[in-house]
Each structure stands twice: as C-alpha cells, then as structure tokens.
C-alpha cells in the first residue's frame, strides 16, 4: 500500500506475525531484583486483537516496550526469552536493524497523548518525521502524507491542524494524532498501551472505534494493553491476564469473561459492574494491593489476596496449563473451584 522502501531483513511470511517466547525482564535495583516480566509467552497474528490485561505494575507495559527495544539495559537485564517478528529474532538483531522495524513494522501508541507528543514541534512535522524516517520521500510528500493521515483518523480541518502544536489539540484529538503517527508507515503490529485511559468516556469509545476501523482497513495486528476490562470485552479477540509479571490466564474473550479459571481473573470479573444484568449484583472487590515486583510472594503471587488460597498455592509457582480444549490456559491450583464459583456467580 505505502511506498515503504526496501527492508533488508528477510522476514518469513509463513511464521507467526509476532511471537513472544518465555520473556523475562528484570531490573537490578538497590532494593532487590524487580522482576517486571517473568516468563511470558504469547503470539498475535494479522488482523487480530490481543489484549493484555492487568493492574498497573503487572508488567504489561514493560513487555510491550521490550518488543520495541525501548527498555534500556542496564538497568534492565533479559535473563531469558526472545521476541520474533515473522520468525526473525528481535532480541538478537543489531540495534540498527531493530530501529528500522521500529515505527515501520511495529508501532506504538501511548497512554497520555499530551505528554507523548513533543510540545515544541508542530503535529504535522512530528507525523512527517515518522514518514521520512522510514521512507525516502521529500518533505513535501511527507507532509502531504501527514495531512492525509490526519484526515483519515478523523481530525476535522486537517490542513490547519497540521501546523498546530500539541497543546492546541484536545485530548481525543491528540490521541488521534498519535494514531495517525503510528500508522504512518502501515505497520503490521500496533502496540496500544492504555490508549484510552487518559480520555473521557465518550472519547474513549470514538478512539476504539477508530482503531477497529483502521485495523479492518489494513489488517493490522493490535496488542491492546489495558487495565480496563470494559474496553477489552468488546474489542479483543483473545485476552492474556497478567499478574506480578506473569501471565496467569489466557484464552478467547468469551472464555475469559464467561469461563474464567484463574482466581485472579475471577476476582477481576466479580469486581466489575455489568450493565447487561437486570438485578443489582453484589460487587466483590479484590482485597489488598498488587505485590511489589521486587518482593513477589512465593508460590502463586496472588495467594495473599486470594479467597481460594490453600497451602498448595504457596509451595510452587503454578504452571500455565490447558484448562479446556482450544488453548484456554490458566496457572491456578484451584482452577476447578474457580470454575464452579463462576457458574454460581453467573447463575445468580
């Protein structure tokens, strides 16, 4: 579609689009080793939306930024794992090649669109910079492309907006501009880190609708990182639930919402108010706070907050195991009890 110049990296088009395998990202601090990501695997294919859900500090942003090579080492270390784009290892790739992929094959949008745009450059120039960094085109062409992109993401009056500065944009407009920038080179993967969290509720829906439309047009894979189950429910194909740096449950959106098999997922759902239920059900919050990643509890990291916890939970870290036929995984000693508790909840 776009005239992106040749990439001298041979990608295997039959391999999965983006695959993360047993990724660990640790930070050595004077308070101990912070295990931000601790053995995470997932993959995503074109046209698909994978949601990574978790509370802040669960490691979901760090894994996304590792994919883009934005985590600096030191202080970070990568004890294990690899990331593959079309079968090509990103971790083993020299920085220079990685940079060619960044913004071109894999792009990212961030949580706070005000601080994510440079305040001293015009919005149009920031988008054009993205174009010119990966395509050999003139300034004029890059600006025209920026203009088209602004129009495409639904910014009215794009010719005027092109020459404005980020602070002259509203929050939703800024996020649209960020999306325009991210899509400038038609990337295959879009990492969206809390793309709607900083926005008003009505704007949130517009931005999500925009992402869906752009995804349909381009067949982009979206990795949607969020703590908001509501956003996930209507937009994700599959969901990974993360807790304390690990994936604790993975499955399709329906499986996660209707058949959760990990106590944490179950807790999240029980604390969620649902509009489609006539009867006022009781919301049960998860007690306590997420653990410090420098000091993760032994065994299942969730056990201190878990209503199902037994001594078995403390002994060893539960493995992520298949709980039902088609790739629904959970790392919970008591996944059966959780399943039963969930049926009771739904029956109410």
């Amino acid at each position: 579609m776009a005239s992106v110049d040749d990439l001298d990296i041979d990608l295997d088009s039959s391999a999965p689009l983006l695959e993360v395998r047993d990724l660990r990202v640790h930070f050595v601090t004077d308070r101990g080793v912070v295990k931000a990501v601790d053995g995470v695997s997932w993959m995503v294919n074109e046209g698909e939306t994978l949601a990574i859900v978790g509370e802040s500090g669960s490691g979901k942003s760090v894994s996304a930024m590792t994919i883009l090579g934005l985590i600096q080492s030191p202080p970070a270390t990568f004890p294990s794992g690899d990331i593959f784009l079309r079968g090509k290892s990103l971790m083993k790739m020299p920085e220079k090649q990685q940079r060619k992929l960044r913004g071109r094959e894999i792009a990212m949008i961030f949580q706070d669109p005000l601080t994510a745009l440079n305040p001293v450059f015009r919005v149009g120039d920031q988008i054009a910079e993205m174009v010119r960094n990966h395509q050999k085109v003139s300034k004029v062409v890059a600006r025209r492309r920026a203009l088209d992109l602004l129009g495409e993401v639904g910014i009215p009056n794009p010719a005027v907006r092109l020459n404005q500065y980020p602070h002259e944009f509203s929050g939703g407009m800024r996020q649209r501009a960020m999306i325009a920038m991210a899509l400038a080179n038609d990337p295959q993967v879009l990492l969206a880190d809390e793309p709607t969290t900083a926005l008003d509720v009505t704007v949130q829906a517009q931005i999500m609708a925009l992402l869906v439309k752009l995804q349909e047009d381009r067949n982009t894979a979206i990795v949607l990182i969020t703590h908001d189950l509501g956003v996930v429910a209507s937009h994700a194909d599959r969901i990974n639930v993360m807790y304390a740096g690990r994936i604790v449950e993975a499955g399709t959106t329906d499986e996660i919402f209707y058949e959760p098999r990990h106590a944490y997922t179950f807790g999240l759902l029980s604390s969620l108010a649902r509009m489609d239920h006539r009867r006022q059900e009781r919301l049960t919050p998860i007690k306590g706070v997420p653990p410090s990643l420098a000091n993760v509890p032994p065994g299942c990291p969730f056990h201190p907050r878990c209503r199902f916890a037994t001594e078995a939970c403390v002994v060893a870290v539960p493995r992520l195991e298949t709980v039902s036929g088609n790739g629904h995984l959970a790392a919970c000693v008591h996944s059966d009890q959780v399943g039963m508790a969930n049926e009771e909840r739904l029956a109410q």
Partner: protein
Amino acid sequence: MTETPDRDLRLPAETLMTEPIGEDVLPVEEDSAARPGKRRRNRGQLEDIWHRYKKNKLAMVGLIMVGLLILIAVLAPLISPYDPTQQNLLNTIEPPTADHWFGTDTLGRDVFSMMLYGLRLALLVGVGTMLGSLVIGVTVGAVAGYFGRGWDSLLMRVTDIFLAFPYLIGAIVIVRSIDPGQTEGAWPVAVALIILGWTTTARLMRGQVLSLRESEYVEAARSIGASPRRIVIRHVLPNAIAPVLVYAFTSIGVAVVAMASLSFLGVGVGIETPEWGQMISQGFKNFGVPNTSYLWIFPSIAIIITTLAFAFVSDGLRDSLDPKLR
C-alpha cells in the same frame, strides 16, 4: 540537579524511573507500607533530611569547614598574633617570614591577622545579608503569593525594578549613595546587598505559595475557617520554605564574594578595615612588583575556601531536602 562526585554510584531505585518506562510499570515507590522492618514512617522529617545529608560526603566536608570557619572567626582576637589595624610603615610589603607568616601589607599590617578579621567580617556580612534578604523576601513573597491580585502585581512590579539593576552595579550605586566618604565600615555594603538580594527570595517564595495556595490541605484549612494569617504561618510557610532556605544558604557565599568584589573595585569598606577584597586590591595595585603576589593569593584562597564550604553545604541541603532533584 548536580551530583557530588563521591556519591555512591550504584543506581538508586528512583533513577530506574528515569529510563523510558511508563510511570505505572514499577510500583517500587508505593510499597514502603508493605515492607516490614523499615522505620521510615516513624522518623521525623528533620531526622530524615539529616539522614540523607549525612550520606553526602562532600556536604559533610562543607559542614565541617563552615564550622571551623565560624570557630576561627569567633576566636580571631585570641588567634591573631598582631592587631590587624596596627600599621608599621617601616616594614611594608614584607613577604612571609617567621614573624609574619603571611607577610605584611602596604601599610605594614600583618596579613595573617588581617585575614582572620577579614573572615569575621565576611561571615558577619554574609550571614547578615542572608538574614535580611530572607526576612524581607519571605514576607513580601508570602503576601504577594497568598493575597494575590493587586498585592501580587504591585509587589512583583517592584521586584522587576530592583531586578533591572545588574547586581554589582546596583550595589556600587547604593553603597556610594549611603556612604560616599567610605567612613561607615561594612554596614552600607550589607544594606546594599539586602536591597538587591531580597527580590529573588521574594519571587521564589511567591511561586511556592502560589502553588500551595491551591493545594487541598490549604483549601481544607480555609474551609474550617482558619484566618489567612494562621493559614500562611501554619500551613503554607513550613511547606514553602525548603527551596527558599537552600537559596538563602547559597546567597551567603554570593554576599561574601560581592563584598570582596566591591572593595576590590574601591567601593565599600575603607582601606583601614581588614577585608579580603581590599587586601586583594592592594595586591592587584602592586601587580608586576616582584614578590608581592602573596598579597592577593592568601586572601583569594580564603575566599575560595569560604565560598566552596558554603556551596557544598547548600548543594547538600538541596539534595537532602528534595531527593527527587538529585
């Protein structure tokens, strides 16, 4: 903003947050409650500051130096071998000897004794200027910041006018108009430095108060009917004062150098007062005369030691008051 060189170079946990990681990624900051065995919460704020200050070696060196300087200044009459004003026109510009460790000046006075008294004067003027600027600046800044509107614009325009004078040139004008004959000693210098120095304090203070005025706990105090006076004194001042105090401490060194610069230029204390700038100016006037460089080298070293000592302390203070600024 500035690091002291011998600080522990291991990465503190806070610097992790400076890497391009989302703020929400590493919740290492909020977990102090979850960590048993730490007494952090129980310690008073002052103790906390002192604890951080102690760890900074350069700041401790500065503190010891300041302590020694004060001690020497207080004990000057006991230590000094000669009366610093005693002239001896038969023994002028004599390079250092066993009798006169640092030599004698153009009037035959003992340079070592003069330096001790010079230290005394420098500290008096430095601290006096700091206190004067602090009192005026904090008051004006608090009034402008808290009452806002008319008060604010009036007072800030006044600071604008004072800030229009380059420091040294303003000081020359003021000292000459207060004391044209150079007969009054050092107080006109102190007054001039206060007149020019309070504005910065006032602006700092105003900025602090402005941001605190809208804070929730001040709002809360206001809503329960506390008087403005009480709010400013009890709630705003203690929280606004930290950067102001750091600046005040820095200004001691600035005042010491300013007084020396003034007398070097022939403004301020007269020749009969033992003062470092005055002494350096003697050396300067004898430039090219062989074996006279001790005249300016000794007092120069004294000034450097004094300003460095105060600079170390104020840098240390700043870092320990606000660890985030490191």
